[in-house]
């Protein structure tokens, strides 16, 4: 159906404020451009709109700004109510994504990450017989007091099984518990380290890219 010429003119007139502000989409801006070329009266309207816009900006710019007390109230609340990031925000941060940008992408990325972590966990648990003997035991089950430095570690999602195995062997380390929340408890070496030795050991263990995070657990 052909649009009524009067309606079309009214619609174009109604779009002029956004045309003047440059906030029309390309399609509507083109319609206004074409109408302006054919209807001189629209040009007069547009001139008035520019005048109104300039004065609206001038009026608002004279209104000043809030005092520092406004920010002080915000800050006091932020300090009194520290935010705990939501699980989604933490996950988004972990995956290097913006949580609000695309929930579908985040969901797929989360699912993919979960699969990687599960596969990695299954693979690393498979190392247990090699590192601790033929049956799985936790450290608390050992008959004699366990010696060595206890650390908690999470591995990079792309760490390969053989890399983890080689890294454990290199550092005389054994998995004694995990995974729990993607973290493993390891015992490293065969003596209780001094604080300085423990710090040096943690620094050494953290050097490899297959370790995402390492913490003392003693």
């Amino acid at each position: 159906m052909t649009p009524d010429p009067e309606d079309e003119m009214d619609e174009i007139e109604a779009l002029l404020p956004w045309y003047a502000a440059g906030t029309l989409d390309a399609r509507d801006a083109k319609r206004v451009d074409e109408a302006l070329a054919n209807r001189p009266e629209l040009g007069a309207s547009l001139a008035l709109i520019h005048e109104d816009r300039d004065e609206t900006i001038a009026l608002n710019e004279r209104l000043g700004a809030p005092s520092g007390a406004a920010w002080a109230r915000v800050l006091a609340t932020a300090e009194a109510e520290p935010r705990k990031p939501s699980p989604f925000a933490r996950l988004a941060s972990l995956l290097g994504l913006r949580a609000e940008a695309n929930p579908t992408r985040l969901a797929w990325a989360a699912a993919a990450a979960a699969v990687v972590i599960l596969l990695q966990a299954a693979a690393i648990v498979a190392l247990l017989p090699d590192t601790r003997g033929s049956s799985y035991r936790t450290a608390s089950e050992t008959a004699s007091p366990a010696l060595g430095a206890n650390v908690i570690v999470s591995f990079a999602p792309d760490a390969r099984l053989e890399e983890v195995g080689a890294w454990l062997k290199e550092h005389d380390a054994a998995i004694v518990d995990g995974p729990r929340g993607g973290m493993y408890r390891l015992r490293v070496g065969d003596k209780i380290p001094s604080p300085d030795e423990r710090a040096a050991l943690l620094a050494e263990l953290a050097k490899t890219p297959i370790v995402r995070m390492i913490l003392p657990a003693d």
Partner: protein
Amino acid sequence: MAESDGDLLERIRAGDQRALQALYGRHHVKIFRFALRLVHSEASAEDIVSEVFIDVWRNATNFEGRSEASTWLLAIARNKAYSLLRRKKEDGLDEEMAAAIEDKADNPEVVLQKKSKGELLRACLSGLSREHREVIDLVYYHDKSVEEVALIVGVPEGTVKTRMFHARKKLSQLAQAAGIDRGWP
């Protein structure tokens, strides 16, 4: 390159106060002015600014990224301004009347004596109804699209266009009453 508002909101979601301060620094003045034009009280407008950013801190996860952060902030500010106006109305204070009293020195008849077209037009802009002031400010000062104004005000896009058209008409009538014949509508 400066971080986008979306990046700052991402950091706010993770509890970063410096990101909140950066977002505040970018938007607090315009939020204040938008609120002030609605509530006509600097103290109330300042309270609204604080409340908007406290809401951002508490509810940053509610920002869905479907619009600009400034649109979201203006929508929060508007809700707070209208809640305040409703409470004041319940308390018996008619804000439009109060505004008219406050603006008396700048009404078109008084300003007419100043013979400055700019001053006259600004007085006419202040003389518009709250509904008309709001849409004019959002389009001309805050550079909001039809869609964004609809989101902020909570009305269909068609209503935004109609409201803007009537606001312009009313402005021309006020200008004519103040001695400026604009030849439109």
